[in-house]
């Protein structure tokens, strides 16, 4: 396989009985790329993402993530990716520090490294004053930024973000995207789903899924040219409404 592509997918398909949830996806995502994965509710995004993060076996096709085969090396994939769910997944009744230590431990980092990373992360996020506060009592924007940083603790090749900014205020949303830019700038590949169409325009490339298939994939600029629209929202509406 091509080593420059962090995700390499060919004919990836998932069937549930007679229903084809994901229909022959083919695409690549490069190192350090910010890739937007869009689609209507029920288009198959979640199913596709589950296959890529190694928790659902495809029915057919090929897929490599971070160099590992989704069919045979799902456990290696899990170790080498970061994942941030749309539902807040840190432990509300652990403190900021405890959460970092816990997730660092899960990913097999040494105590020494966890300590170092923890200090850097807390300073960078400006969480010094709440480092020993239960995460449950933090504002949602802080929680989301913390979750993102925790998903990067083990320096994964690629991080999957499932609607990371839902309900977050506009200023924090932008701080969040700056964090994404920073991670990408350092070489981490970012695979992100969102319902905010303006956020799709932050991505290097965007794919739009309709009924299990990728119906469009290009840079935001080229997609807008291709569909003669001014926004990705209008591209989306043209595609999904038919």
């Amino acid at each position, binding site marked *: 396989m091509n080593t420059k592509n962090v995700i390499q997918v060919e004919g990836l398909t998932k069937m549930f009985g007679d229903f084809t949830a994901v229909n022959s996806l083919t695409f690549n995502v490069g190192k350090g790329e910010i890739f937007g994965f869009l*689609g*209507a*509710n*029920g*288009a198959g995004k979640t199913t596709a993402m589950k296959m890529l993060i190694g928790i659902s076996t495809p029915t057919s096709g090929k897929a490599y993530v971070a160099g590992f085969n989704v069919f045979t090396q799902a456990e290696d994939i899990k170790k080498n990716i970061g994942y941030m769910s*749309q539902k807040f997944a840190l432990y509300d009744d652990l403190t900021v520090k405890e959460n970092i230590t816990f997730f660092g431990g899960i990913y097999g980092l040494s105590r020494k490294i966890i300590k170092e990373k923890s200090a850097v992360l807390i300073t960078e996020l400006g969480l010094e004053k709440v480092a020993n506060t239960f995460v449950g009592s933090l*504002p*949602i*924007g802080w929680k989301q930024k913390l979750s993102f940083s925790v998903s990067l603790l083990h320096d994964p090749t690629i991080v999957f973000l499932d*609607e990371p900014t*839902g*309900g*977050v*205020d*506009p*200023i*924090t949303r*932008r701080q969040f*995207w*700056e964090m994404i*830019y*920073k991670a*990408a*700038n350092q070489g981490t590949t970012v695979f992100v789903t969102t*319902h*905010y*169409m*303006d*956020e*799709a*325009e*932050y991505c290097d490339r965007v794919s739009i899924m309709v009924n299990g298939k990728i119906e469009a994939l290009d840079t*935001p*600029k080229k997609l807008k040219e291709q569909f003669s629209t001014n926004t990705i*929202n209008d591209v*989306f*509406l043209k595609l*999904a*409404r038919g």
Partner: protein
Amino acid sequence: MRISVSHISKSYKQVKALHDISFEVKPNEIFGLIGPDGAGKTTLFRILTTLLFPDKGNATVADFDVITEYKQIRNSVGYMPGKFSLYQDLTVEENLTFFATIFGTTIEENYDLIKDIYIQIAPFKDRRAGKLSGGMKQKLALCCALIHKPKVLFLDEPTTGVDPVSRKEFWEMLKRLQQKNITILVSTPYMDEASLCDRIALIQDGKILEIDTPEAIVNQYPKQIYNIRANKMYQLIQYVKAYEFNHSVYPFGTYVHYTDRRPDFNPEDLKRYLASKNIFDVEIKKTEATIEDTFMELARK
């Protein structure tokens, strides 16, 4: 029917959820509460639908007082909470019949009002509500909130987590309901939906930042915004943020929205500064403020 909110405050232990909120929704208006999670939107909905007492202040809905006349309010309003609150193990039709019965009416009696919406989920009327897709759940919840022909409709984040196509359809439904003389109070975290309301209140941390028509809110933005673009986005943001004259720097899709502190800002100065940082392919153009720009400017203060 109008909604009138006067100096409402509400705290949960130490947390001030609402702080001295006042506004008025005119009869037959679509009024939007625009703000992020934790702004206090749901608390306000619960007070206005008589499910929660305010600590201070008073409010009327359809001219009934939220504390002393709660029963009349409950009969005259429809409420669609943010969390899906129908019975998951009843079918689509059973849910609708249930809500109609509770309010002493029938589906047939007010079918006109829900027809446009119900038609879209009618093919699934024997499916359990729990088994519906997000978009269909939302349509069923709206039908259930409308079945007793309310005068005022409360919609708490009806489009959160919903894709752009369903969101657009939902707003088209609201416009049609407005023509049937229903006053609508709707909340959303999506700033782009603000322009679909007649008037909006921007709300954050329990306080109202501004109330006006969407056009007027955008027009009051105090500065000229510039769209800046370059190939190296991350570096561009870092350097523009470090520029000594910057007033605000926010990524906006493929651009950065920039405002300058000086009244006589010349984009060429910024270009020269960026060139000194090895960023050359820079494009700087004037652009119009959006609701989101205004929200962020107000929230900074």
